[in-house]
């Protein structure tokens, strides 16, 4: 091989090696640089719900007339809590009660159904506790807001959780009092209000 050819070959090799070494150093630098990252992903914020319903489908628990002393009416309503937040549920009324209210004894019990009766039947009701005893008029005057409403929880719980149910049995009895004759309570409503704890 002539000197000239050797020189050219050497040039090729020197350039190739220079480019190769620089390129590889850059590549190695890219692939092997020490690196560290940390991240905090998937952030979101959502609120829960407070939702309660009953099985009355718009019907009254009781609507009776022409009752006499010691006659009773019994009706049950089933409450279902579907909210996602733990809650308290209080029972109260904001209705005005007519003159018969003071002669109408009312008992409210909480409990469960062993079967599956349709509203407002109490067939299969098992009482867990009595949550109110008194006259309907007294209930209206002392239990007229969430703050003073009757609190009740399913079984021995201290909060309502999602899909909890509780049955309330109302028993109303006409007192044997002549002043009750010919009177009416008027239309009234009961309210169950749930508030998150």
């Amino acid at each position, binding site marked *: 091989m002539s000197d*000239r050819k050797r*020189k*050219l*070959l050497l*040039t*090729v*090799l*020197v*350039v*190739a*090696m*220079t*480019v*190769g070494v620089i*390129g*590889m150093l850059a*590549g190695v630098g890219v*692939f092997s640089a020490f690196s560290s990252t940390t991240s905090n992903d998937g952030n979101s914020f959502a609120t829960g719900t407070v939702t*309660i*319903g*009953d*099985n*009355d*489908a*718009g*019907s009254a628990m009781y609507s009776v007339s022409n009752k006499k002393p010691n006659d009773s009416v019994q009706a049950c309503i*089933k*409450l*279902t809590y*579907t909210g996602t937040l733990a809650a308290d549920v209080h029972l109260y009324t904001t209705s005005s009660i007519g003159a018969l209210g003071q002669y109408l004894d009312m008992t409210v019990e909480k409990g469960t159904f062993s079967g*599956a*009766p*349709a*509203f*407002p*039947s109490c067939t299969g009701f098992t009482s867990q506790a009595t949550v109110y005893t008194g006259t309907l008029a007294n209930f209206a005057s002392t239990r007229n807001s969430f703050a003073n409403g009757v609190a009740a929880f399913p079984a021995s719980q201290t909060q309502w959780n*999602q*899909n909890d*149910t509780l049955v309330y049995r109302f028993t109303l009895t006409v007192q044997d009092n002549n002043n009750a004759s010919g009177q009416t309570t008027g239309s009234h409503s009961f309210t169950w209000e749930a508030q998150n704890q």
Partner: protein
Amino acid sequence: MGSQRRDRGTRIARWVGLAVGLAVVMAALHAWRVAPAPGPLMGADVSFTAGPTGELEVSPTGRFLSGTDLRPSGRVLMGTLAVRNQTGRRLAVQLRALPNLDDLDGILRVEIISPQGVLFVGDLGTLRNWTSPLIVRRGQGESLLFRAWMPTQTPGGYEGDDASVAMEFLSKPVGG
């Protein structure tokens, strides 16, 4: 003349060296490249849930249909949901879906069948609207069969999704 030829030869040698050097670098970088992980894409995980309302008791409470790795294979997920009218009136019950994501809206097909007929058939997005009503007599129950699948012609967009579909009920008293 001889000097010109030498310069030209040197220039060519430099270019050849550059080309060779670049080729070596390219080959090395290609060899070091991290290959993508092999294996098929992930399917979608799907679950349907339901809870009671004041008017309706449902069974089971919570998840009643679920499946993992669902793909456009024609595989059908099935689940049964029993609803019972616990009011004293006949109810018209409608359902709608509240999915936690919208990726599967146009992909997942859903069918809801009751003993009274097909309540709904269509994609999940359409099920965000209320279905046809199901009449449930007072104190009575109805069993609903849910079917969910991805048609075989489904394009992508479902891979790795974890869809939870909550069913919501609307009950209205009808007749006596």
